[in-house]
């Protein structure tokens, strides 16, 4: 998804989304709400445009990277079971909880390149959204990703999919 949209198209898209959100939140199609919604959506779009000019978003993921989100629901179930089992084993004295910090090599790319930023951000999001792992940070200088795991296991798959060398 390259950043080739013109500002007009992006603003129109933003206006539409804000207007739909307004209608959802007010929960009515009465004429005065529809009219005020246009004004509200226009103000929000103007704010978004000003922020984007001042601080342009450096984030350009590919569709393939975004579609990796389909695996997340499965991870949520598996990891929830995993962390509950860790707590249960610790409580019953079977196996005390032994979490660990791990450092993996990660193809971080350039610090300011939009595609590399998107890859790093998605690696952090997809890994941290899982209950079993939390990313602490990605060091571009040393090309490493530091994360915490509730119990020892293979490195989370999103890291490998998005640039980790596991």
């Amino acid at each position, binding site marked *: 998804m390259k950043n080739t949209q013109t500002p007009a198209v992006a603003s129109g898209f933003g206006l539409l989304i804000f207007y739909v*959100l307004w209608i*959802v*939140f*007010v*929960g009515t199609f009465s004429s005065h709400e529809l009219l005020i919604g246009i004004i509200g959506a226009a103000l929000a779009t103007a704010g978004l445009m000003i922020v984007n000019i001042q601080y342009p978003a450096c984030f350009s993921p590919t569709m393939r990277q975004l579609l990796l989100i389909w695996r997340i629901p499965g991870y*949520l*179930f598996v*990891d*929830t079971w995993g*962390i*509950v089992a*860790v*707590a249960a084993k*610790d*409580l019953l004295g079977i196996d005390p*909880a032994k*979490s*660990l*910090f*791990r*450092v*993996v*090599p990660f193809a971080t790319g350039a*610090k300011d390149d939009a595609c590399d930023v998107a890859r790093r951000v998605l690696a*952090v*999001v997809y890994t*941290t*959204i*899982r*209950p*079993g792992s*939390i*990313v*602490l*940070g*990605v*060091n*571009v*200088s*040393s090309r*490493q990703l*530091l994360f*915490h795991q*509730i119990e020892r*296991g*293979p*490195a*989370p*798959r999103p*890291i*490998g*999919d998005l640039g*980790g*060398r*596991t």
Partner: protein
Amino acid sequence: MKTITIEALVAAAVLITWLCVLGMLRMRDPFQRMHYIAPPASLSVLFIMLAIFLQDGLKPESFKALFTALVLVGMNTVVTHAAARAFRMAEAKGWHPAKGEEVPVKATDEPDVAEPAS
């Protein structure tokens, strides 16, 4: 059938929340405890949202519940990451980040050995 599904979803949401609170009580390390925030903030809220949609259908409140669920899932990820990084930075007293460095790496952190990804 619909009533049973709604009740099962709500019961599952409450059960997951309780198990995670008890798990959090059991853990001794703040990093370990942070893992137990994720299931209520993702699974429980999604189950409640689905139950609301089943009960109320396509009403504005259902979409507000959907938006609340999305906010909770997304924002919990961000806050967990930010807090974990903050805790690590607080532990590394006197750490000054070099250019391109985001988080201090300690000697006790385990370097990765090549394993198949899960």
